[in-house]
């Protein structure tokens, strides 16, 4: 189970997150949408302390952490129970696809290199990139890099995978293969929180859609409800804008 309570984050005078509450059960998928600069990415980054929240309570699996008093052990604990997929992939540039996936198993789980590589190969099979095992990130397309990024997150067998706009840095031609992989994970009951602008994905895959604006959760509902009967005016206006923009292809 994942639970966030009262997560607050300020950058100087500016309050980016203003007391966020969110919880999800094992296997649940939450998609977070909203205008740029409303703290969606910051929220994800607070869950594993890439940004340190100023206040709030974080629970991931059996670990509960008071953000204001988090020790370095707490932070490591949160990071080892979560996995993160970055907008810009952030693959280790000096490591092959296989090594990128195996790295956590070697360093954090203490597996032998042989064992870790064997398991990483299984993951490469699952993400359909077995033939790229020995390729370095620079030689891979954006779509392939992001699939390796997701493979690296899968290797963590984490309580939850956090996706930070996983397709927004991609050329349009690579978006589909990444979304397809995420749908595959969803079908396998992987718990995930996804920040994205892909409304069609949210509709198809999310159990709950969260609309954020101004550092707060404005509205949260299953996609069937949120997309057809948004309650708040801000949600309506946001959906009008994004759905009008890509209605023909996205419908």
């Amino acid at each position, binding site marked *: 189970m994942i639970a966030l309570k009262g997560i607050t984050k300020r950058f100087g005078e500016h309050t980016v997150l203003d007391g966020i509450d969110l919880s999800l059960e094992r296997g649940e998928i939450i998609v977070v949408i909203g205008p740029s600069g409303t703290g969606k990415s910051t929220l994800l980054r607070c869950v*594993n*302390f*890439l940004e340190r929240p100023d206040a709030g309570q974080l629970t991931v699996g059996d670990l509960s952490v008071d953000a204001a008093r988090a020790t370095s052990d707490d932070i*490591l604990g949160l*990071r*080892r129970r*979560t*996995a*993160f997929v*970055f907008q*810009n992939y*952030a*693959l*280790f*540039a*000096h*490591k*092959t696809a296989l090594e990128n996936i195996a*790295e*956590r198993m070697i*360093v*954090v789980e203490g597996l032998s290199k042989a064992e870790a590589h064997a398991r990483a190969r299984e993951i490469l099979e699952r993400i359909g990139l077995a033939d790229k095992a020995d390729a*370095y*990130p*620079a*030689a891979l397309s954006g779509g392939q890099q992001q699939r390796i990024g997701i493979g*690296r997150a899968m290797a*963590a067998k984490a309580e939850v995978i956090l996706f930070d706009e996983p397709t927004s840095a991609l050329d349009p031609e690579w978006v589909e293969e990444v979304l397809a992989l995420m749908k595959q994970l969803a079908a396998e009951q992987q718990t995930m929180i996804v920040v994205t602008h892909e409304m069609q994905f949210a509709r198809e895959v999310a159990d709950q859609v969260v609309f954020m604006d101004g550092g707060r959760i404005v509205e949260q509902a299953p996609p069937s409800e949120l997309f057809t009967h948004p309650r708040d005016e801000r949600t309506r206006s946001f959906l009008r804008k994004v759905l009008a923009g890509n209605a023909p292809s996205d419908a």
Partner: protein
Amino acid sequence: MQALNLDYMVGLVPVLLGYLPLTLGMAAAGMVCALMLSCLLAVVRVSRLPVLDQAAQLFISFFRGTPLLVQLFLFYYGLPQFLSFLVSINGVTATIMGLTLHFSAYMAESIRAAITGIDRSQTEAAQSIGMTNAQTMRRIILPQATRVATPTLMNYFIDMIKSTSLAFTLGVTELMGATQKEAASSFLYFEAFLVVAVIYWIIVEALSWCQKRLEKRLNRAYQR
């Protein structure tokens, strides 16, 4: 004008080459020690560890700010005056010490720049999979920084090989010291120093060739 005494020059080559192991040995020892010390200094500076950071800055400032020759004289002739255990220090040890301290100051700054130049996302990715700071530094940042810093560090190594010739001023008979002695007994100064210049030149060229191969290897991961 007198013609070059070619026979003398050819005969001098094997004599001087006998001193090559000492010259290269001092440079190799100095480089290994300087690499370790400069990595330590760079990590201290990047992590901004209180007190240690200021100490590292002072160290770097002094050893970059004073000539190597002055430093060598200070260690070899100066310090034993106060530190009695240094009285027995020999010229070779003093040279290695001097090269280490002097070059580690320069190298620390190159390594620090290489570390800070690594994209922040690499650190975040390492943190996100639950690596500790030390693991992140050792497995992700330093290997990538090595590639960035290698060309500069190789330049310092080349400079260090040539700087071993200063050991001659501490009475060490290495390549340069030996040449000086040979020249003084034959009075063929031009020939002797020309031979030794060419020997240094060839060593450095050989090293440049190795550098190219090394860089190619390190860049393997970055080929499209």
